[in-house]
């Protein structure tokens, strides 16, 4: 086991772990943000540069600091390594720069974007971005492209994280999807708008950190914070899909199905297109219960989970049992 110190917090990790994953083992504020790294996709990461950290001590054997900031998602730890993330002004400055660069060509059309509310770029911009832009030129624009009948690609919003390319490469067996051109006119594309035709192609929607790839069955149906996420599963007959999903309800209707995501917004297990696009009735699913949404997320804003249990709960033993979590939290506070 290697001992690593991140922002003064020591942690022991397996050799070969990346700095980012070591930080995730600690958790909390010191975890660098990641826009392109996706733990489920091999080879992802290193591109967006938001996870840059400073290595102030290389290792026990070679204590020299690394000359440049490194991408924590692709740099493996060494024994005795000391890393600075939020304690280094240099890192904060660089990250601010990266966020600014990511945003200069982004349309900032959050009010009409389906991803708003669950967009990683929004979170990142909120945390590290500046209130005003210094960019005074026309932003890059693309035509919207339909990738098959269920997915729409809106390149204008894309930050070129390559996650969907890796997904297409690794989850689907026949790749029809990649990058055209280079530099700031590079674009994600299926060659000659050929439809992505695969049982798992819908997962590119889930891995997209921004609103570039959206679900056409959900587009403009609702704001994500007006919907109610519920964990559910079904017995999917596709051998690679285990049918564990999150259903997004509006009233009585399931208006969207996505894979379950962890705290870092990464899909826990990829789901098939049948589960995602075709099973939109409550009857298709076995409901497990409401999804826990972080109180920091805007999605939780309409879920009446109060900090203190309501008076009616306190008097009813049945309700007390059902609201155990809440009681525990109250005693802890």
């Amino acid at each position: 086991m290697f001992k690593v110190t991140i922002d003064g917090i020591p942690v022991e990790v397996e050799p070969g772990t990346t700095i980012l994953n070591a930080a995730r083992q600690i958790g909390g504020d010191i975890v660098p943000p990641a826009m392109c790294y996706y733990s489920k996709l091999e080879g992802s990461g290193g591109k967006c540069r938001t996870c840059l950290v400073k290595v102030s001590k290389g290792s026990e054997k070679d204590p020299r600091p690394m000359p440049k900031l490194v991408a924590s998602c692709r740099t493996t730890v060494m024994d005795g390594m000391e890393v600075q993330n939020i304690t280094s002004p240099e890192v904060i400055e660089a990250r601010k720069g990266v966020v600014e660069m990511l945003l200069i060509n982004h349309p900032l059309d959050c009010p009409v974007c389906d991803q708003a509310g669950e967009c990683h770029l929004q979170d990142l911009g909120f945390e590290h971005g500046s209130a005003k832009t210094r960019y005074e030129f026309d932003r890059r624009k693309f035509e919207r492209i339909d990738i098959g009948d269920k997915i729409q690609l809106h390149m204008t919003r894309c930050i070129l994280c390559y996650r969907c390319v890796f997904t297409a490469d690794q989850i689907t067996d026949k790749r029809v999807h990649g990058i055209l051109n280079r530099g700031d006119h590079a674009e994600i594309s299926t060659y000659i708008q050929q439809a992505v035709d695969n049982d798992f192609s819908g997962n590119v929607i889930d891995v997209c950190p921004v609103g570039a790839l959206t679900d056409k069955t959900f587009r403009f149906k609702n704001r994500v914070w007006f919907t109610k996420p519920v964990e559910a599963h079904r017995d999917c007959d596709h051998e690679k899909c285990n049918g564990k999903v999150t259903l997004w309800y509006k009233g009585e209707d399931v208006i969207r199905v996505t894979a379950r995501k962890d705290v870092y917004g990464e899909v826990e297990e990829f789901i098939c297109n049948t589960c995602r696009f075709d099973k939109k009735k409550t009857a298709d699913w076995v409901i497990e219960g409401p999804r826990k949404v972080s109180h920091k997320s805007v999605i939780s804003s309409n879920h009446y989970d109060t900090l203190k249990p309501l008076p009616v709960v306190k008097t009813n033993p049945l309700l007390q049992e059902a609201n155990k979590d809440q009681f525990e939290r109250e005693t802890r506070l």
Partner: protein
Amino acid sequence: MARKLLLEHINVPGINTYDVYRSKGGYASVEKALKTLSPEDVVEEVKKSGLRGRGGAGFPTGMKWSFLAKPEGVARYLVCNADESEPGTFKDRYLMTYIPHLLIEGMIVASYALGAKVSYIYVRGEMMPQIRILEKAIAEAKNAGFLGKNILGTGYDLELYVQPGGGAYICGEETALLESLEGKRGNPRIKPPFPAIAGLYGCPTVVNNVESIAAVVPIINDGGDEYAKIGIGRSTGTKLISAGGNVKKPGVYEIDLGLPAEEFLYSDEYCGGIANGKRLKAVVAGGSSVPILPANLFLKTISNEARLMSYESLSDGGFATGTMMGSGGFIAFDEDQCIVRNTWNFTRFYSHESCGQCSPCREGTGWMEKVLHRLENGHGKMSDMDLLVDVSKKIEGNTICPLGDAAAWPVASAIRHFRDEFEWHVTNAATAVTRNYGIAHYADPLVIAEKAG
């Protein structure tokens, strides 16, 4: 006149053919290396010679070779980086056009030293004539028994292939070159692992510049110690400099490293001074990506010593008042040249050539290009200079490959040394589109030089 090592026989008619090249002592180093030296000896000679990579970074070649991992049963590759596309640099093209056998001879010796059975020369796609020349030369060498199976009866096999690239500047970055050579999109890889551990097809690989490989030939012929006597300090040997811009005699010159910069620029043996009796305004000493220097700082360092054409002397003063040897693309600007326009032109190039993989370079180069375009065309603002410096700082060092740095340095240095000219483009916008600023006030940037950082 100093002794030429690479271009000694360049003026011999027909030196591009095998017979003439051989009659002038060509392929002697192959005979010497394969018959009398072990691969380790060759690496040792190159180490002793102190040869530093001629492609730009100046990393010692011998050391690079000794880092090559040598696992059992795994192929090793030598790849020659002939994707020369830096604006201002044309030395490799010259070498490949006129004396292709020198490169092939170097490739054989270097491949032998590294134990490579298959080697590639990755040539930029635009250099179609050079690709044909090299292929012809390879065929000739093969005929003469210097390539193929059992070379010179020593049991060493080597196949040499020429691979045309697609003409992207980014493919000159070694890992992007390997990706391209594998047939993929030329995106730089994230390091580590370095090519010495996992390069071409995941096997240990050494990527060297054309000139570095060619320099192996005189090193083996004369011995590493003899080669190390040429030059100054840690800059040993000779270097090809492709001089361009407003000099009287543009062209490729082989200089001993340590030649005074003033002599190189003004002596008749080399550039012959500034054309048309104009005065020198600025110099880009090593290809478009190195910091630009005003005339006075180019000729004298900050500590008032004469600047020499060597790795150390050119970088004396760091980024505040120095520059870099780079790939040897020497561009001189006379008083009629506009620094703003030139900076815009360089940035336009980098913006066009950025691979678009990592965000600071993809977005930042385009941003800088737009701001500079605005400045050049008389729509700039006073705040643009600080904006450009800030953007360049946010690109520099935060990218996957050195293209980000290469895009940031020319902008940062131009503003550092020629800020008054940029400001003039804002204050006299109408005049700035009709005439150039001239040499006037850049006078003494030594006093106002900013600290690097």
